[in-house]
């Protein structure tokens, strides 16, 4: 067996490669378990399933995703209920609240007393999570609060240096983006061209890169307006104002942040669009169902299919508050439908 890491197929540092390497036999072990292959492997020491504390922490994965883990002691949860009238106890259910500290938006997710969860969020924002109890009568009562996390912008900054010595005007910055490989993306443009050719029944064009069928397939599941814009860019053009206006709301809003910062520069907006496109493809690659209103675009695909949150039930939550690709910016409180757990009718 060789050194565990591998060198990469595209620019980037340590990038996982799908390589068929020989499987290493396990070392002798004092805590051996039998693997599926019948080999005995050392699974390591026992570690606890929980630590018996009240805690919630959030971690950033990328500009669009947060991971949250939490644990609430049953006695802490019961204590909260004890603060309210006896007949109200059964109206409470454990919930988690995600707050976008910049926009002031909130989302609620019904949860078990311990677990982990993936949120799909917007770039360049700050978030905090509270875990507590939610009652249709009394609202949300937090038990424990997380750290505040910040998602990176995922594209160029809107800020220009105030010091004239280091101020860079937009045309020069666009030129620097091109030199550094940030104006466009060879793989993404080839994917867009391949998918456009396939859907039009045309022969495949000559490619600089070798776009993978999985990426082409993911691209085909992006919203029509995104695909149209990407193909236009792949042809060497800049995004037009009308193309930007037709993009899904969240993507358009991100680009409009750049617009708001100063002069309109089509090349800069085109570059920013290409910076954000991989995240859209990532969602599609992970199995997101983009056009299905039952599965809003921002809902992490891993939540819909497999992954860390598969231990959870689908949350009873209204996601439509969230500024997403498909939804409005209107903030709404969570709506909890009355069910058998509710002994008191919803107010």
């Amino acid at each position, binding site marked *: 067996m060789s050194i*565990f890491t591998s060198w990469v197929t595209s620019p980037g*540092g340590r990038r996982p490669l799908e390589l068929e390497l020989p499987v290493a036999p*396990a070392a002798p072990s004092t805590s051996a378990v039998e693997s599926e292959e019948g080999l005995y492997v050392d699974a390591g*020491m026992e*570690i606890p399933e929980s630590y018996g504390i009240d805690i919630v922490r959030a971690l950033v994965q990328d500009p669009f995703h947060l991971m949250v883990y939490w644990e609430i002691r049953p006695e802490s949860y019961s204590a909260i209920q004890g603060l309210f009238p006896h007949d109200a106890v059964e109206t409470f259910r454990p919930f988690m609240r995600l707050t976008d500290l910049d926009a002031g938006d909130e989302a609620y997710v019904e949860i078990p007393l311990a677990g982990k969860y993936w949120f799909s969020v917007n770039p360049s924002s700050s978030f905090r999570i509270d875990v507590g109890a939610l009652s249709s009568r009394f609202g949300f009562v937090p038990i424990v609060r997380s750290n505040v996390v910040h998602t*990176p912008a995922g594209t160029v900054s809107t800020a220009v240096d105030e010091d004239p*010595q*280091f101020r860079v005007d937009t045309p020069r910055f666009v030129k620097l983006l091109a030199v550094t490989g940030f104006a466009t993306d060879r793989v993404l443009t080839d994917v867009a061209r391949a998918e456009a050719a396939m859907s039009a029944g045309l022969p495949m064009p000559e490619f600089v890169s070798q776009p993978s069928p999985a990426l082409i397939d993911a691209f085909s599941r992006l919203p029509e307006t995104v695909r149209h814009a990407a193909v236009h860019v792949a042809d060497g053009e800049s995004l037009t104002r009308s193309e930007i206006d037709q993009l899904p709301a969240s993507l358009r809003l991100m680009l409009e942040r750049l617009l708001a910062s100063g002069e309109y520069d089509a090349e800069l907006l085109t570059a920013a669009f290409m910076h954000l496109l991989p995240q859209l493809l990532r969602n599609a690659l992970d199995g997101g169902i983009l056009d299905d209103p039952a599965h809003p675009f921002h809902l992490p695909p891993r939540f819909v299919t497999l992954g860390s949150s598969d231990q959870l039930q689908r949350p009873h939550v209204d996601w439509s508050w969230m500024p997403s690709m498909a939804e409005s910016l209107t903030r709404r409180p969570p709506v909890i439908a009355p069910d058998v757990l509710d002994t008191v009718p919803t107010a």
Partner: protein
Amino acid sequence: MELGLLSIVLHAHLPFVRHPEHPEFLEEDWLFEAISETYIPLLHTFQTLVEKGVRVRLTMGLTPPLCEMLSDPLLQARYRKHIEKIVELTEREVVRTRGTEFHEAALAHHHHFSSSYRIYDEAYHGDLVAGFRGLQNAGALEIITSGATHGFLPLMSRVEARRAQVEVGKANYVKHFGRDPQGIWLPECAFAPGVDQLLADAGIRFFFVDAHAIMFGSPRPRRAIYAPVITHSGVAALARDVTTGERVWSSEVGYPGDPFYREFYRDLGYDLDYDLVSPYLHSDGVRRNVGVKYHRVTGKVALHEKQPYLPSIAAERAAVHAGDFLANCQKLSAELVGTLERKPIIVSPYDAELYGHWWFEGPQFLKHLIQKIHYDQDTMRLATPLDYIDEYPENQTQTPSASTWGAEGYNRVWINAETDWMYYHQHRAEDRMIEVARRFPAAHGDQQRLLNQLARELLLAQSSDWAFIITTGTMVQYAIKRFRDHIGRFNELYEMAAANRIDMVKLADFESRDNIFPEVDYRVYL
């Protein structure tokens, strides 16, 4: 006329793998292979060039776990045993392949391994860290440190835990290199605003990030990635140049994919008759790579269609590629110098193990590149980040974007659906470490030993390698075992500390297994 500076950065790192409890251990081969194929060839290349009077000026990161392993007597003894067996195998292969199309490759491998062993033994007496230290003292290398165990700083829960990674890494550097580190390789280039303050507090002057850290940083960078930016804490951040780096990194369009270079995935461990190769396998007798390879890349063909490797032709290709790389740097510098209104610094960082281990001819490529820069031209100069800052002390202040050099540019390689279970345990250990350090700020004797071991177990659990291996899916079981073992040992030690009842036999056992950082002081968590 000089047009630009080229800053080559080699990041050498392996996780701490040392298993005294077993007579041999598969994952220890990671170190042994890297010693023979990367560390000795690089040392020898740089040393030879320096002795010839060629100007060598590179930045090299040697992480604390690697320095600890290279200096460990048990692992040094095991390496000697390992290399002696390979030298013996290649001796036999020279005889066996006589008259065949593989003979030149067999001779080259025998020469390579026997020379490596001789250099290890005679030139450095088994102490490769001393070799690198000598090159730093000679001005050929600027050696930088890293997080103590290559811990992924932005995913740690507490600032004390991040600081401990930086401070323990620095202390280990001082132990091995006899001076303070000027620069650091942030593990996985993982940066988040705030990390830079910890570096400033440790007296570190520069670190490296991926290109989008600066291109997406705020405010917009005046000189893109071709000048450092200075963070608000006063530490310089330098970003790698993707366009030139791709020529080396990429197996698709990069040099290592040349048809004449040695093919990594076709190995004698699988090709040779079992009876002939079995004495050189581990005692379990399972076929695996032995590091002897007789085929070349050939092209995009199946492994059984690979053609014989001819080292003499491959060496010529390395020289051609060095010339091409230099020409690309010259062209880029000529394009940029006007726009930037000063010379660019082109930062080219690589995993050191790419050179030699994955790309067998990589050290030859570096040798040719350094020689060409020295002898054949005057437009590019090899430089370290501090050379640039000495020449251009005024640089833009910026907050770089949170980023890493992993796939997709952020944290996905280290936190995803396969690895997210790890963080609660790691964070709980961080909380508990800080708690007991505060509770016993002046421990001594056995209690001090216990708390120092507690710190070692936490640091080892934090290594970014475990999550990386799980995500890549290659040696998953081992990574899970290691993480669980360190968390498990931490928890047992924590219970002892909390109850103030020390099981000395168990403590001694953990100390002998995880003996990294004998100098560690748990008070770093205060």
